[in-house]
């Protein structure tokens, strides 16, 4: 089932933003509103395309759909190979949606070098979509790296006071990880019979790689992804980057870039190195658990609300990793869904913090307090988003966390119990944030504080609607995710890793 539309949908999806970026680059520099409008139109078009992909995707068909393959570096057996399955599909839609919202949210926040900014956002979108759709190791690597640079530039140019520090830290962390990945990719390429094509590798590799080599390759890949996720203790770039990045940057960073790490585990680590899993899973699970509890506790101690949300990301991503490495369908499908959920709820939180920052020019929670009386619309959105993030039933967060924990409970009761305790802590720090921001006596002495305007409401509305859509009808997602996840959790792998599970 390749190209049922007779039209390279995925390639168009991936490269439309880049082409659009070229178009934006040709616009006159000082026509800010025109640039914004054109960029918005571009992201809207890409989002439309991704929705088309969503509905054209056939859940009942296993494997990759809409695959396209043409030789790229033919002499080396590297091809341009893209395809979409139930794991990447939700992430693609998430990416296009969040980019759209990010562009819309930076309408007023970005006033300098608007053109460069929009061009970078569009290029970033191409990179991110490419990561999720690439089926060739080197293609994946190219997109992986190319998504890194625009992000670092966005942080470094439009960020807060310590933006340069944050951007460099972000860049170095990720680069250090991805260099390892490149080396591992080359080794895989050589051992896999001079091919970097993922489906082909999955065919040829089993039984070929000696165990020790598998272990090293796994470590290399896992480190690259662990930096991106980020797993404890490789997470310290995240708060720095999040705090300093402009709002849209934080949204994309938390919403999409972190998912690239988790996606990498699903796409590469698990299928390529099944023999290593029994040894690696406990380590990764424990790191994920530490992330959950540690991230939550550290979030509790933050004064800067963006920092708090950043550490909450560490905790939430811990759930996702835990779910992935429970290696059973509920947990893994829950993890994939939770990636979307986290993108929405944490993205939403960052957007809301951005709303506040644009008005008050502070992120310190001690400067807030009692705001709900002044900005009721903001307050309602904030509470709703915080509760979604805390996993309130009826919203998306609950479904993801529940399935992850239930699946984890199947394989390891202790992990599940500790992670469940993380939910208690999540309630603690999120409600503390709500308490200190919205509740209590009004701390503001300045008289001017306007509620969210129509544009900001439009930005938040799709997110909130998705909270409930996913919360009430998660099967819309699960029916697409399930087949892909079930292919990854073949009983053989699981029983080797966890022993016989009844």
């Amino acid at each position, binding site marked *: 089932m390749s190209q049922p539309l007779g039209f390279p949908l995925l390639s168009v999806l991936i490269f439309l933003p880049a082409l659009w970026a070229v178009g934006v680059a040709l616009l006159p520099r000082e026509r800010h509103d025109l640039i914004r409008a054109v960029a918005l139109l571009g992201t809207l078009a890409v989002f439309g395309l991704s929705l088309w992909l969503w509905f054209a995707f056939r859940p009942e068909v296993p494997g990759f759909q809409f695959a396209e393959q043409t030789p790229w570096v033919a002499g080396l057996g590297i091809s341009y190979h893209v395809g979409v399955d139930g794991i990447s599909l939700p992430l693609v839609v998430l990416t296009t949606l969040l980019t759209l919202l990010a562009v819309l949210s930076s309408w007023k926040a970005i006033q300098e070098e608007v053109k460069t900014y929009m061009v970078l956002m569009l290029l970033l979108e191409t990179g991110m979509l490419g990561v999720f759709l690439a089926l060739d190791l080197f293609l994946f690597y190219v997109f992986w790296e190319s998504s890194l640079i625009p992000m670092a530039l966005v942080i470094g140019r439009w960020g807060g006071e310590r933006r340069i520090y944050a951007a460099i830290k972000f860049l170095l962390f990720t680069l250090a990880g991805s260099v390892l990945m490149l080396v591992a990719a080359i080794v895989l390429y050589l051992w896999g019979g001079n091919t970097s094509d993922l489906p082909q590798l999955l065919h040829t590799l089993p039984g070929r790689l000696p165990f020790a080599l598998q272990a090293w390759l796994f470590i290399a890949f896992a480190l690259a992804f662990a930096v991106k996720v980020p797993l404890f203790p490789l997470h310290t770039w995240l708060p720095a980057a999040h705090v300093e990045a402009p709002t849209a940057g934080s949204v994309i960073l938390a919403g999409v870039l972190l998912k690239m790490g988790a996606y990498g585990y699903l796409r590469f680590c698990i299928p390529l190195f099944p023999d290593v899993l029994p040894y690696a899973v406990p380590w990764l699970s424990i790191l994920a658990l530490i992330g959950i509890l540690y991230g939550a506790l550290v979030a509790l101690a933050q004064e800067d609300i963006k920092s708090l949300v950043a550490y909450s990301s560490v905790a939430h991503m811990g759930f996702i990793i835990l779910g992935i490495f429970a290696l059973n369908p*509920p947990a893994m499908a829950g993890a994939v869904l939770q990636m979307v959920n986290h993108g929405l709820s944490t993205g939403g939180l960052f957007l809301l913090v951005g709303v506040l920052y644009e008005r008050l020019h502070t992120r310190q929670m001690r400067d807030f307090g009692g705001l709900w009386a002044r900005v009721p619309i903001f307050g309602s959105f904030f509470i709703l988003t915080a509760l979604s993030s805390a996993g309130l039933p009826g919203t998306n967060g609950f479904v993801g966390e529940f399935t992850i924990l239930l*699946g984890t409970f199947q394989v390891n009761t202790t992990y599940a119990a500790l992670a469940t305790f993380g939910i*208690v802590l999540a309630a603690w720090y999120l*409600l503390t944030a709500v308490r200190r921001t919205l509740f209590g006596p009004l701390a503001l002495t300045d008289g001017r504080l306007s509620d969210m305007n129509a544009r900001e409401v439009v930005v938040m509305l799709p997110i909130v609607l998705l909270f409930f859509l996913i919360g009430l009808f998660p099967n819309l997602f699960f029916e697409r995710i399930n087949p892909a996840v079930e292919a990854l959790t073949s009983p053989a792998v699981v029983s080797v890793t966890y022993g016989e599970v009844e």
Partner: protein
Amino acid sequence: MLDSIWLVIALPVAGVLLNGLLGRHLGRAFVSVVGVGVVGAAFALGAWAMTDLAALPEAQRTFTLPLWDWITVGNLQVPLTLRADALSLWMVLVVSGVGFLIHLYSVGYMQHEDARMFARFFAYLNLFVASMLLLVLADNYLLLYVGWELVGACSYLLIGFWFHKRDEAQAPVTLMDGTQVTLPPNLNPADSGKKAFIVNRIGDFGFALGVFLIWSTFGTLNFDAVFAAAPQAPATVLSAITLLLFMGAVGKSAQLPLAVWLPDAMAGPTPVSALIHAATMVTAGVYMVARSHVLYELAPGSALVVALVGGVTALYAAAIALVQVDLKRILAYSTISQLGYMFVAVGVGAYAAGLFHLTTHAFFKALLFLAAGSVMHALHDVIDIRRMGGLWRKMPLTGLTFLVGALALAGFPLTSGFFSKDEILLKAFQFSPGLWVLGLATALLTAFYTFRALFVAFAGQPRDWPLYEKAHESPGIMTLPLVVLAMAALLGGLLGLPAVLGVPNWTADWLAPVFDTHGLEAKHGVSAATEWLLLGVSAAVALAGIALAYWFYVSRVDIPARLAVALRPAFVFLANKCYLDDLYDAVLVRSGRQLAQLLAQGLDKAAIDGIIDGTARLLARGGAWLTQFEDGHIPHYALGMFVGALLLVVYLVVR
């Protein structure tokens, strides 16, 4: 009608959407009509459904309505299915009935709020009713958990409704010897809501694990399927499941050791205290245990734990209520105490008795709270009973209804509370006389503190004249629910008259298909004489408590003050709520925050980030150190080249 049972939930949800999104533009009248109307309609639909169900033969009185497949992942399949059986419809009626009256009352009580807050309040209340109805109509544990968490969230939002308020200090008590006993301040609404949610989450932690364990044991979360498979499950697993589920109930129903959140929850508006923190939400734990009775019957150890926790909590809360001066807090501790009773009931296997007490408690406790709210309304939110007195004359209807509620709570003979409490005591006696003594002691204290509050607030002379002058009876929309509830509190006993009277016990009969309790009486039955004796004893205890309160607070007002001096340590201990809050604050909250600070500052910033930034700095410094070799002196470069070339030559030769 049963096919449309989903409307019972959908209607309040519609109310939420309407009031929440558009309410502030629609005007008070509209908001009130929608907010109250949807709950009333839900009650009507529930009643209709109940008649439909009653028309069916007993064995078929379980109706399930699958709505849609909610979560389907791998072998996990959770359909969104509603279940209407005798138990859930009973609860639907209690929730929507009492809820309807409280909604009505709120129209008057919240009148002084601005339009936005007014609409928001009704949106929250409707959301709560919808969540609570979902909780009781759930057909599987996950859906039950969903409702369970949602009511917690509503509770959080409603407790913190007046989010801008600060902590309120309580005036210290001056004893006869001139010394003062400081009372802990009343926590502000925002923090109270947060506390309630988090403490509940701790309970839910256990509940969630229980749900996971159920699924991994039985492979399903559906009630019937679980109960059918339960007898084959190992006893230890069942004990674990039931204890974990009970942990959730302990949180939700404010039992020891998680009882600390409910008194603080009184920071919310009074209708909220009446609806959520007295009549309905807090009883969810009792409902859950009753719903899972099959599991608890198979795990007698857990059932015993339930009964013991209930009994101890009942006594603990009643003791604290003795010395409280905040009217709502007295009622809050009384709620905890009565919930303890209910757990004793379900713990000893008297599920119908527990549900019966749940129902009568919903009536009279809602009544008491609403009456207290009426007092607050009249006194401009003054809640300290030491500033009241003589209110009887100013607000007779409120006083009368409060009296009815107090009589029911105290277990005055022939009121609803008398019959339901007696039923529990009887079952407790059958189970173990020790438990019965515990219950009886609690009953004595209950009668005493209830009438202490009544006498201090309504009888005697005013203590605060300016305040007294301002007091007035509440408007009709508030007193009407009071009267209705007072009738229910008086006559609710008719629903479950004791077997010894030879009349049918409607509650037990109606719930029998669910609890499968036919013939249980015969098995454990006590002689009629014993039962009469027990009835007499509990009536005597109630009367004794009331009389004692009258003696202390009407005829010899100096006695309590003297007692406080004589038993000063005990007084201080109880006035400080047994220091449970302080204990948690010191052991959990503060050390948790300190740990968080330590991790954030010490580990995260200093250690981890320090190592990483340190590595970076080391590299930078290394680079800087290396640049000194590039000093611009050509001979140095030449030397370097020469040595390098030489090393290469040596390498090539030696190799």
